[in-house]
């Protein structure tokens, strides 16, 4: 059994580029998980202890507590997503490994080993590989967590943020992930022994291969040289892998770019059509009968609850009776919105919860429930805020229409709590960077992962064509012709798959971002534009070009060294 393990693990290690990429994946997954948890676990424990002892936290601590909670949700989602992707890759890699090594495995079975013995040896190799990868990730995560901790310290102005991890997290990040990958490997091997050992040794299938779906599909397209595509797509699992890789690349890239730009978008919306210097708020309701005589905007603000299907949201309800050059609500077309009877939405409710003009919102204000229709949606509404006419809100609060508890102004008022516009934006900015620091880092790793996946899928696809390439060479085709016939279709295919799966990628990425936004309670507007798509296409083709060039060099070396027969023989 030891020799069997030795043989299989050495044979796995021989697949250097594949193993390196898979190893990087495990390191990335582990790193992402641990770098976040090293900066969370101990602090989460400390804050919980403070909560238990004192019953409450300071304002900064409370914000930090929420951020820690959000980061835990984020990293859980990202880890699950990354592990799912990795499991698919591992499954395909192991299937391919078993298929390519069928002769030797058949030979091993002929010596009296069981199929189970082979699978266990592969599982054991996976376990070693995964444990080493997760430990490397753990060490890197330990050091990497300092970045997130420093960001948190600067953001929340909390001293005494400490690095630490709890045992449960440690076990999940190392043993549980390893167990999952072992199960995947085990599943790959099931059914290996269904084939007769003699057929495995001869690397033969019981039935002659029949042209299938791909051939039928290619035949239907009005393209020149259909045979090129039939050869390229002859291995359905490799084609599927390319599709998976492209979809993952799309999702990761769109998500990453969107997350990166969502912060900028928020700042943009929070500064649009605002020209006031001070936001003055009062603890009590004030009255001013000359409100309409000034440029200042007098508003009423009250916290209320929006009841959605299966969800309740704490929201600010702001009553306005007019807007001015100091603050103007605008719609998607940058057209000013008039304050009229009904609710003016903010983008979060529209994007994350699907509310739209004409819908009725169930609102609880001052203990009373109201059903109010949506009359408009303002792209530059304050975060966590909806607007209704001031008179309507005053009625709900049993105040007269001249009451207010806040003013937007350019004058320095002496009474009330004054927040400058700059401070308000700085606070939003602080919240954005802190809450999304780990998300952005993780998404960057996600992008690298997507790129690695493309590299891997393309390499597998091209490797599967190695035999055909060498046969073409022996038939007298020159390098350029061979590349044209067997390598270029891959590049075309990958671009076709990119465009076909782009809507899926965008849809899924948007879904993930909305889900994360809802779970964390932070609005993250989904951002995509033509520049993003062009950028993605550029990176994708750059990767393709790179892999193609590397592969072409490899083929050239084989041909120059006249080693074609070595790669062509079945045995």
């Amino acid at each position, binding site marked *: 059994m030891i020799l069997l393990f030795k043989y299989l693990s050495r044979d796995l290690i021989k697949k250097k580029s594949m193993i390196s990429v898979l190893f990087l994946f495990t390191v990335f997954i582990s790193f992402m998980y641990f770098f976040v948890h090293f900066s969370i676990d101990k602090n989460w424990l400390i804050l919980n202890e403070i909560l238990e002892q004192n019953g409450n936290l300071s304002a900064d601590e409370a914000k930090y507590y929420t951020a820690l909670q959000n980061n835990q949700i984020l990293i859980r989602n990202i880890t699950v997503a990354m592990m799912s992707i990795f499991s698919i890759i591992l499954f395909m890699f192991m299937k391919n490994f078993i298929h390519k090594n069928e002769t030797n495995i058949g*030979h091993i079975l002929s010596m009296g080993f069981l199929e189970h013995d082979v699978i266990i040896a592969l599982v054991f190799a996976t376990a070693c590989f995964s444990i080493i990868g997760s430990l490397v990730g753990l060490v890197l995560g330990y050091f990497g967590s300092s970045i997130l901790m420093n960001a948190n310290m600067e953001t929340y102005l909390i001293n005494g943020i400490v690095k630490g991890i709890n045992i449960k997290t440690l076990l999940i990040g190392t043993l549980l992930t390893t167990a999952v990958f072992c199960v995947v490997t085990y599943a790959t091997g099931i059914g290996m022994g269904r084939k007769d050992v003699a057929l495995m040794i001869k690397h033969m299938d019981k039935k002659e291969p029949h042209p299938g779906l791909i051939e039928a599909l290619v035949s239907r397209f009005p393209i020149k040289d259909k045979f090129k595509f039939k050869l390229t797509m002859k291995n359905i699992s490799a084609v599927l892998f390319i599709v998976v890789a492209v979809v993952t690349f799309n999702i990761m890239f769109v998500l990453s770019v969107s997350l990166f730009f969502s912060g900028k978008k928020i700042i943009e919306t929070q500064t649009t059509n605002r020209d006031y210097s001070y936001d003055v708020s009062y603890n009590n309701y004030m009255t001013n009968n000359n409100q309409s005589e000034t440029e200042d905007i007098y508003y009423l603000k009250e916290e209320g609850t929006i009841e959605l299907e299966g969800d309740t949201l704490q929201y600010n309800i702001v009553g306005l009776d007019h807007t001015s050059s100091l603050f103007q609500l605008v719609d998607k077309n940058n057209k000013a919105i008039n304050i009229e009877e009904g609710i003016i939405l903010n983008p979060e409710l529209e994007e994350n919860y699907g509310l739209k003009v004409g819908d009725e919102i169930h609102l609880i204000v001052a203990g009373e429930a109201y059903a109010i229709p949506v009359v408009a949606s303002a792209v530059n509404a304050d975060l966590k805020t909806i607007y209704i006419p001031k008179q309507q809100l005053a009625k709900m609060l049993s105040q007269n229409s001249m009451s207010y508890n806040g003013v937007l102004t350019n004058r320095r008022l002496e009474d009330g709590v004054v927040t400058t516009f700059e401070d308000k934006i700085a606070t939003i900015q602080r919240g954005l960077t802190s809450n999304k620091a780990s998300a952005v880092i993780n998404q960057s790793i996600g992008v690298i992962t997507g790129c690695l996946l493309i590299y891997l899928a393309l390499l597998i696809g091209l490797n599967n064509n190695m035999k055909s390439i060498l046969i073409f060479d022996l038939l007298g085709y020159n390098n350029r012709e061979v590349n044209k016939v067997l390598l270029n279709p891959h590049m075309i295919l990958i671009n076709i798959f990119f465009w076909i799966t782009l809507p899926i990628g965008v849809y899924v990425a948007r879904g993930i971002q909305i889900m994360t936004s809802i779970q964390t309670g932070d609005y993250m507007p989904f951002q995509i534009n033509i520049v993003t798509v062009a950028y993605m296409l550029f990176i994708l083709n750059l990767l393709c070009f790179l892999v193609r060039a590397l592969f072409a060099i490899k083929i050239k070396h084989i041909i120059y060294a006249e080693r074609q027969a070595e790669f062509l023989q079945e045995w």
Partner: protein
Amino acid sequence: MNNVLLEAKSITKKYDDTRYVLKEVDLVIEGGQFIAILGHSGSGKSTMLNVLSTILKPTSGQVFYKGKDITRLSKRDIASLRRDDIGFVFQHYLMLPNLTVRENIQIGNQKENNDIDLEKLCDLLGINQLLERYPYQLSGGEQQRVCIARALIKNPAILFCDEATGALDSDNSKNIICMLHNIKKEYGTTIIFTTHNKEIAKTADRILQLEDGQIIEDYMNQQILSPEHMKWEI
């Protein structure tokens, strides 16, 4: 026939539901013989060897090993049979490339108690000096001798050789055949050898000739040729 080791009853093998490779073959093999299965390419000799040796399931029929129907054994029992009683030598050596010669031989033995000494066996096969080398450092003949050692290290009752000299030159082929005969003498191993080479068949105790999946001739060789005197003209 008290010494029956292997018996095939009406074995048939077909692929794709229509392509018959073996048709209703009956066969009885006694222990301690060197049996040559002779036939042209596509005659069904390898298929017959594979069915007899448990690595290919027949479409119908039964194979008995020491009276036990081995076509109905569980996977575990088949593995145990292969582990203890059956050795294989294939045409294309099939050494595990990442293991040394010594490890390649050792992997063939999973028995706890084994009376065959590795050094002595390697001495017999002339590969003692190669034990720490890797397969890529060996010639074809050396690789095949290592494969024979791997098959024999567990002291199997039967050694199945599928065109074991098919990839070798005449000198190496002759050597291998000589060694197999020596092994039969030394350990009493039953050897079943498929070949298309009539000279090799002449050295066997019994010759089975196959054509189109059927045994057309089955006879005890009355004029056994000593392997040293084989004329290697194919």
